[in-house]
C-alpha cells in the first residue's frame, strides 16, 4: 500500500511539473524574441572576451594553468550553461509578496517552491531551444570553439545540479521580501556576488589563493564554475585538484544544503505572512 501511495505521489508531482512547465513554455513562447536577444548578446560578449584574452596571452602561453584555447572554451561554456540555468525566481517571488498575490499561491495545494521550479523548467526549455542551441552553433561553427564535453554524463548531472542550486539560492533571496517588502537592493547585492564569485567574469583560479579557499565554503562556484570545469574534465581551485565524481558529489551535497536552507527560510517567512484577499 505504501508503495502505491509513493507511486501516486510521484505521478502527481510529475503531472504538476509537466502541466506547469508546458503552460510556462507556451506563455513565454509568445515572447521568444526576448530569448533570442541572446543570439546577438552572447556572441558579442564572446568576441569582447576573445579580444581581451588574445591581447593578454600575446606575451604568455599559459596563465594560472590555462592556455588561450582553454580560456576561450571556458567563456563559451560558461555562457551556454548560463542559458540553461538562468533564473529569476527571486524577482517573481518578491513581486508576489509585494503585491499581495502570494496569497493565491498560499491557497493552492502545491508548494510554491515546487510550482516555481516547474515554471523554471518550462522557461529553460525555451532557453534551450532559442538561446542555448543557436549560440552553441555560433560558438562551434563561427568561433571554432571546442564544445565537446570531456565526460557528457557528469557534465549533464553537474548542469542539472547548477540549475537547482541557482534556483534554491534565488528562491531564498526572493523570500527576503517577507521581511523587506522591497527587496531589489538585496537581489542586486546577491547578483553582484554571484556574478563575481561564480566564475562568470573570469575563471576563479585567477583570484588570490585565500579567496579561492573561501569560495569552497560559499555556494557561488557551484552555479557556474563547477559545471564549466566538469565540462572541461579538470577541476582545480586553490591549488586543490579533484576528480570529476568527487567535485560533482560535493556539488550535490551543496545543493542539498541549499534546498534545506530554502525550506527553513520558507517556514520562517510563512510565520510572517498575512493575506488580505489579493
Amino acid at each position, binding site marked *: 500500500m505504501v508503495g502505491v501511495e509513493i507511486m501516486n505521489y510521484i505521478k502527481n508531482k510529475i503531472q504538476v511539473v509537466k502541466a506547469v512547465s508546458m503552460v510556462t513554455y507556451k506563455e513565454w513562447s509568445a*515572447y521568444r*524574441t*526576448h530569448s533570442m*536577444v541572446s543570439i*546577438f*548578446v552572447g556572441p*558579442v*560578449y564572446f*568576441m*569582447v572576451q576573445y*579580444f*581581451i584574452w*588574445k*591581447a*593578454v*596571452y*600575446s*606575451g*604568455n602561453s599559459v*596563465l*594560472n594553468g590555462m592556455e588561450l584555447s582553454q580560456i576561450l572554451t571556458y567563456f563559451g561554456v560558461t555562457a551556454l550553461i548560463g542559458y540553461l540555468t538562468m533564473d529569476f525566481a527571486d524577482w517573481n517571488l518578491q513581486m508576489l509578496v509585494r503585491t499581495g498575490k502570494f496569497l493565491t499561491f498560499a491557497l493552492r495545494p502545491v508548494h510554491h517552491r515546487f510550482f516555481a521550479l516547474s515554471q523554471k523548467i518550462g522557461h529553460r526549455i525555451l532557453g534551450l531551444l532559442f538561446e542555448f542551441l543557436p549560440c552553441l552553433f555560433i560558438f562551434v561553427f563561427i568561433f571554432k570553439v571546442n564544445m565537446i564535453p570531456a565526460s557528457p554524463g557528469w557534465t549533464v548531472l553537474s548542469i542539472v545540479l547548477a540549475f537547482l542550486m541557482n534556483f534554491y539560492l534565488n528562491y531564498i533571496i526572493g523570500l527576503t521580501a517577507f521581511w*523587506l517588502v*522591497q527587496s*531589489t*537592493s*538585496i537581489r*542586486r*547585492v546577491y547578483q*553582484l556576488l554571484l556574478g*563575481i564569485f561564480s566564475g562568470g*567574469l*573570469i575563471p576563479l583560479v*585567477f*583570484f*588570490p589563493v585565500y579567496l579561492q579557499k573561501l569560495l569552497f565554503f560559499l555556494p557561488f562556484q557551484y552555479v557556474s564554475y563547477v559545471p564549466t570545469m566538469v565540462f572541461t574534465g579538470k577541476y582545480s581551485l586553490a591549488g586543490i585538484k579533484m576528480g570529476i565524481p568527487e567535485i560533482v558529489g560535493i556539488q550535490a551535497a551543496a545543493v542539498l544544503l541549499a534546498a534545506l536552507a530554502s525550506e527553513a527560510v520558507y517556514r520562517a517567512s510563512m510565520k510572517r505572512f498575512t493575506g488580505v484577499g489579493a
Partner: protein
Amino acid sequence: MKSNYPGIYRECIKVSFATAATYRFNFVLNAIIMLVSNVLFPLVTILIYGSGAGFPGWSFYEVLLIQAVFTLSAGISGALFNGILWVTMRHIIEGSLEIVLIKPVDCLFYLVASTFEPDSIGLIAGGCIMFAIAAGNAGAISLLMWLQFLALFLAGLLVMMGISFIMAATSFKWVGNSRIPEIFESIKSFGKYPQSILNKSAAAFAAFVIPVAMVGCFPAAALLGKASMPMFAAVIPCVLFALSGIFLYKYMIRLYEGVGG
C-alpha cells in the same frame, strides 16, 4: 504659452529625490551597491595584471583610467537618460502615452526629466573614486589634456544619450522586451578596454559606427596624452549618433497610435 523647461526639469529632480526618500533603505542600499559594483567593475583588469599579464602598451593605471571614465559616463548618463527606456516601455504596454502627449511640453523632454534616477549617484561616486586613483597614478596632466578630455567626455555622453533614446524608440515596436538594454550593454563593452586590442574592423565600428570608444577609451587617451586625430574626428559620428537617437524617438512618437490611455 512658452513652457518653462529649466523650471520643469528642476521640479522633476526634486520629485525624483522625494520618491527615493520614500524607500530610503532601498535607495541608500541601491546607491551603495552601484558604488561597490562599479568599484569592482575593473576586477577582471586587476586580476589580469595581478597574474603578471596585461594589455600590451597599457599600464594597469592607464586601463583603470579608461574604466573609470567609462563608469563616470555611465553614472551621469544613467541619472539623466536611462529612465526613459523603462517609462516608454511601460507607457507602450499600458497604452498610456497619451497622458504625456497631451501635456503642453515636449514629450521627449518631459520623459527624460521625469525619469531622473537619483540611484546613479552611487555609480558617479564609484567612478569618481576610480578616476581619482587612476588619474593620480597616470603622470602629469596638462591643461590642454584636461580640455581635450572634457570635449571627448561630452561627446561620449552624447553617445550614451543616443543609445538611451534608440533603446527607448525600439520599445515602441519591440513591445515589453526588457532585454533591449542587454543588446547595447554588450556593444558598450567594446569601449571599456584599450582599442588597440581590437582588430581593425571592430575598432572602426567602435569609433565611427556606434562610437562606444568615445565613452571610455578616447577621453582617457586624451588625459594620457595619447589622443590622435581620428579620435577627434570621431566626435562627428558621436553628434550624428545622438541626433539620430532624438530623431528616431520623435519619429516613433509620430507613429504611436493611442486609443485613449
